[in-house]
């Protein structure tokens, strides 16, 4: 999943560099009023085009999109059947009070990554983030990607109308990918801060092995 995320991002950047402007609405091309130009950030069109590689980018973008989607479906099915989402990821109603979220937020800001005693597993902000990423951002990436495909315009013109145009879909696809990058960085920081080796071991084996005191907290 992380590998395909990395390759999707990398190949996406390669594709973007080959046409480093973003537009809003149905049409957009070099010379059309853009809402974002890489040129304004000191990277000329020519330089960006040299850095990018849309042939390589397109090929790998689709390859890893498939790996990502198939992986994601297996993950959803597996965890859905085992009620893992219900038990661990979906926030409880009792957690969703403003007071509680504020408390956890302050806790996080202080970079105190020791487990909060009152809450085993993920805290409420983590839960909200994970739900948002898995059930909002990922599907949004897929749908805004599909909306850019000419074959899908034929299959479902509604899809492109939903976005208000192909260029809007393209722009939102890029914006959404930036949100995912932010999430990914924060996620990595959290993993490292809370002990990368233990966390990765837990990801692979499925059970978290901490020190004795942490184990008690988990209970």
């Amino acid at each position, binding site marked *: 999943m992380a590998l395909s995320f990395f390759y999707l991002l990398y190949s996406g950047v390669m*594709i*973007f560099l*080959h*046409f480093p402007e973003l537009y809003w609405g*149905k*049409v*957009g*091309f*070099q*010379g*059309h009023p853009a809402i974002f130009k890489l040129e304004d950030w000191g990277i000329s069109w020519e330089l960006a085009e040299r850095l990018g590689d*849309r*042939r390589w980018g*397109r*090929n790998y973008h*689709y*390859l890893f999109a*498939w790996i990502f989607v198939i992986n994601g479906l297996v993950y959803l099915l597996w965890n859905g059947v085992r009620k893992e989402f219900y038990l661990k990821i979906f926030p409880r109603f009792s957690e969703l009070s403003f007071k509680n979220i504020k408390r956890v937020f302050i806790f996080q800001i202080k970079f105190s990554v020791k487990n909060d005693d009152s809450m085993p597993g993920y805290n409420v902000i983590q839960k909200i983030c994970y739900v948002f990423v898995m059930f909002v951002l990922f599907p949004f990436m897929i749908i805004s990607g599909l909306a*850019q*495909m*000419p*074959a*899908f*315009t*034929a*299959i479902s*013109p509604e899809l*492109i109308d939903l976005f208000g145009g*192909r*260029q809007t879909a*393209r722009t939102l696809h890029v914006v959404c990918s930036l949100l995912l990058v932010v999430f990914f960085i924060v996620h990595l920081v959290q993993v490292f801060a809370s002990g990368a080796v233990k966390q990765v071991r837990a990801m692979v084996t499925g059970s978290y092995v901490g020190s004795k005191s942490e184990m008690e907290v988990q209970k």
Partner: protein
Amino acid sequence: MKKFQSSLSTKRVRLSRREIIRKGGALTAFLMTGCDSQFYKPPVLRGGLMGIADTLTMATQRSLMSNDQLVQEHDPREVTQNFPVWNQSNPEDEDYQRLKANGFEDWVLPVTGLVNNPVSISLSDLKKMSRRTQTTMHICEQGWSAIATWTGTPLLSVIQAAGGIKPEAKYVMINAFGGWYEGYDMFDVSHPQTILAYGMNGKDLPAGNGAPVRLRVERHCGYKQLKFIKSIEVVSTVEHHGRGTGGINSDFGFHWYAGA
């Protein structure tokens, strides 16, 4: 199989839009129910995971598609004023320059290969055949998009003017000046919006956009929309053209199927 053949081999040239759609539908029905895997995968598969991904993309899209579906047609008022000119804008071929100097009066379109009755169609004859005008969006794989009104002859009508295809025919290879060429399967060939366009925004097709005739195959990205068309050849295999992958773009490593 009979349905499939009849849809492409009638000798009538004039077809109403409804008829084309109906025939396209019959073709699709055949292809969907038939065991013909060429509908779901490119003519030549790339090796390894890339070939699998190509097939997954094409098969998924194709399984959702039918020739009854038209791509969105826009209001002519939405036409992009300065439509971009990309790739070659003036092929250097001597032949092309000679035709261009004469206002393309001597331009003829040979339709050869696995057709029952090979023909050469002049530009004025092409304009007399059934006509379709559509305002559609050109989507370039680079990222840009622009809207134009295209007027032309359905490719299906041109193939039918050549007596339709022989049973072993699988792909239509279109050659262009400047050494460009692309292959298309019968599903795309028989789509009602697949036209050989000679008009753009109510005028003759401008030089930079592929004069005198270009292809519009609306369910694909820009690189399948061949400009400066020279000849049409119906084939059973793509391996004798270029590097044998079915098109100049796939020769250079792009997907043959440009629906994504």
